[in-house]
């Protein structure tokens, strides 16, 4: 199945009327209601907006200051939210939660090492087993069959006709990190099942992260949460910015990028480069927009999630880019794969090997397709020179931190890093390796220097405004965080109204979030 059919399917069924349910459904259980809403709980949908308002009001008014009630409400809301995607997979989520909850307790209670190991590997095996079956079985089966065919052996491989449960890669990684941390005695097992279940299933992070750690999230879940006006406003502001990134930047870029990527042979090199640049902004707007909405939403409930993006396109080298892009996943792989493999403590070859492993696995985590593996491999390739030269931690701060504009050297570094990531994203976006190769071949020729046949001026203007705002706000946690200090209020609000007006005028037809497929 083409990867992008997934997006189309989701957007086609994303038409349910959430509020209508409350008008028309006099009876019906949890699953009935969830099934009727169907897969319409996208963060950029009205359904989610109404869901959020209802849960928010109940959360702070009814259950204020009662932690158990707050956590129980959030857990029920999270399960409802997940059931709206596909209620059948709720059982998988609940099973995975109980598995890790019980194995966590068993590991901690075990006095013998063998017993500890047994429970540890049971959890790891089942968790990875689920991922293997749902996400990777068909990939391995197809490639195995192809391999045998190349040796002259014909095999008829049985492929599974199953849908990938939304968010499985994310909640599985939550569970894995929890069990590994208990096994390594970094944390204590959580005794309260509601607390643990909420750690795994908290709805803002359930379907596309950030990938949380028990050490960060569980203490917040267990601590009383008080209403904080400043935090609420900050959360709303981050949601607004995330929404702008998603529905204005990502979705409008998607329209052009999809058009160009669908038939790369029809366009000249400069148009194809533009298509890749649009996809570069699409994926950033899409995923970081999602993360902003998730972080803002969690903050509304008094919970701080891990920061997932830190203005990655202002990076001066690929190593810096990876410290700023999908931070929660990068740090997960660093802690649970790179460091156990020896990290950077060994010799040069060991560092190179470990870097390749971490990037290839990271690519494969994104999807069972060779395009993702090549994407990971390319990133590793681009980062290796700095690993060899031990300069990969050179650019740790913010570019032009105390200046308005970067100097020439920084500008060239940022542009060259950006172009390298644009090149890598071609593999990420392509349907297959051959598609990517055709795209690159058609792009890298003389026509690269001709005038693009598609030049959406309004979108380019929007992108310039967007990049400008991101640049000005790069010192904050998100681009418009510091707008809070702008006085008078009218000026600050005028900016919000301006953003809302652009959202109103440029909202594009509901593309789903790209990372929901992972």
């Amino acid at each position: 199945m083409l990867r992008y059919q997934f997006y189309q399917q989701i957007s086609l069924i994303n038409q349910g009327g959430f509020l209508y349910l409350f008008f028309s459904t006099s009876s019906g259980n949890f699953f009935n209601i969830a099934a009727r809403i169907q897969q319409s709980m996208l963060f950029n949908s009205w359904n989610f907006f109404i869901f959020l308002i209802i849960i928010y009001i109940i959360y702070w008014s009814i259950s204020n200051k009662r932690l158990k009630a707050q956590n129980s409400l959030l857990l029920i809301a999270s399960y409802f939210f997940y059931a709206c995607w596909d209620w059948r997979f709720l059982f998988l989520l609940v099973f995975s939660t109980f598995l890790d909850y019980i194995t966590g307790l068993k590991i901690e209670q075990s006095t013998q090492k063998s017993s500890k190991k047994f429970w540890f590997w049971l959890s790891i095996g089942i968790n990875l087993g689920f991922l293997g079956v749902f996400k990777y079985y068909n990939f391995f089966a197809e490639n195995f069959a192809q391999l045998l065919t190349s040796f002259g052996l014909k095999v008829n491989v049985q492929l599974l006709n199953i849908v990938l449960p939304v968010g499985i890669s994310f909640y599985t990684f939550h569970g894995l990190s929890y069990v590994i941390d208990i096994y390594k005695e970094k944390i204590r097992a959580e005794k309260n099942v509601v607390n643990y279940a909420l750690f795994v299933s908290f709805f803002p992070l359930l379907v596309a992260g950030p990938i949380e750690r028990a050490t960060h999230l569980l203490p917040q879940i267990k601590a009383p949460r008080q209403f904080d006006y400043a935090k609420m406003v900050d959360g709303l502001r981050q949601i607004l910015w995330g929404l702008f990134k998603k529905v204005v930047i990502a979705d409008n870029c998607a329209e052009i990028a999809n058009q160009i990527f669908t038939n790369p042979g029809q366009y000249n090199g400069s148009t194809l480069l533009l298509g890749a640049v649009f996809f570069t902004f699409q994926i950033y707007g899409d995923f970081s927009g999602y993360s902003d909405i998730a972080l803002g939403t969690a903050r509304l409930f008094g919970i701080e999630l891990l920061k997932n993006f830190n203005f990655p396109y202002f990076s001066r080298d690929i190593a810096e880019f990876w410290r700023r892009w999908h931070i929660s996943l990068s740090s997960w792989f660093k802690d649970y794969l790179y460091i156990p493999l020896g990290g950077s403590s060994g010799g040069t070859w060991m560092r190179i090997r470990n870097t390749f492993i971490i990037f290839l696995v990271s690519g494969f985590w994104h999807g069972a397709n060779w395009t993702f593996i090549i994407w990971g491999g390319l990133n590793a390739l681009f980062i290796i020179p700095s690993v060899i030269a031990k300069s990969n931690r050179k650019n740790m701060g913010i570019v032009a931190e105390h200046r308005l504009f970067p100097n020439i050297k920084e500008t060239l570094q940022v542009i060259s890093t950006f172009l390298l990531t644009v090149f890598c994203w071609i593999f990420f976006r392509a349907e297959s390796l051959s598609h990517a190769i055709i795209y690159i071949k058609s792009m890298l020729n003389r026509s690269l220097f001709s005038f693009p046949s598609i030049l959406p001026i309004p979108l380019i203007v929007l992108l310039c405004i967007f990049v400008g705002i991101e640049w000005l706000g790069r010192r904050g946690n998100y681009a418009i965080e510091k707008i809070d200090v702008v006085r008078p209020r009218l000026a600050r609000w005028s900016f919000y109204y301006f953003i809302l007006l652009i959202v109103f005028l440029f909202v594009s037809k509901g593309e789903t979030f790209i990372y929901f497929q992972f």
Partner: protein
Amino acid sequence: MKKLFKQLILFIVPILIFLFGLDYLMSRYLKNTGEVFGNVTSQYDLYEGRIHEPIVILGSSRAEVHIDPNVIKKGTGLDCYNLGWSAAESELLMYRFNEYCKYNPLPKLLVVNLDMTTFNTQQVERIMRDEQLPFNLYNFEAFHFYDKNILYYLIPGIRYSEKRFLIYQTLLLGIKNQQLETKRYNGFISSDATWDDTQLKKILQSGPRTVVIDSSAIKSFCSTLKYLQEKNVQLMLYYAPEQKASFPLYKNREEILALYQQIAQQLQIPFINYAQGDIVLHKEYFYNAYHLNRTGADMFSHMILNDILQLFKNKLSFRKQTN
């Protein structure tokens, strides 16, 4: 929390003022846009209850561009309105007709155009058209039919999100107090274009197809016709001519025409099949495989007129006009 809600309300008030204002201006000035955003004039006629014509034509674009109400009026002495709507399958036809009935009196004669795909309702995506937008606020029939989020129907202005060009054009005309002309007469619009089979060739390349009939759509269509019969509305069904080159496109073409005949017999409604007349042989009457141009439409309108005169001479009081 009180402070937050207070601030939120303060913040939302200007947004609501903007949305209400936008809604008002769009509803007021969209009628000035002529044909830029579709069949706007008919929509205003329909929702403002201005369709009092005793003869009404209902159907898809093949009704919209085929039957000239002026020809019918001259021949019968009775006013006629063409409610034809592009890409309308039976459910959309019935929806449009229901909306018509809500705001206008029932006609004396309803002439219904049927197409090959009229009852192929399953694959049709219900897209809200720009021309409908002014009339959808608090229109719950539209909500049930289109099944978009109910907030689009409850909160003014939201329906116009993403419609940058529509808003810009409409408000610009409003500010200039300018009205674009429409060549439409009582819903009918004709084309001077000449024969072009590019699209047909493209479609034919993918091979002949079978039209899937939705029996529930037929059922609901028939029950509406029965209701109209009870209300003494005269009915006539017809199948408009298609250029002969398009015949191979549908495998079950004959079956569908037979089905229409059967429906008409069951309901005792005349069904006129123009699918095999001389007109289908002449490409000069068509601008594409399924639509007649101005010359063809004029000829076909006279054919329809003759059939109306013959079939309903004892049931309707015609007053033939001499000029």
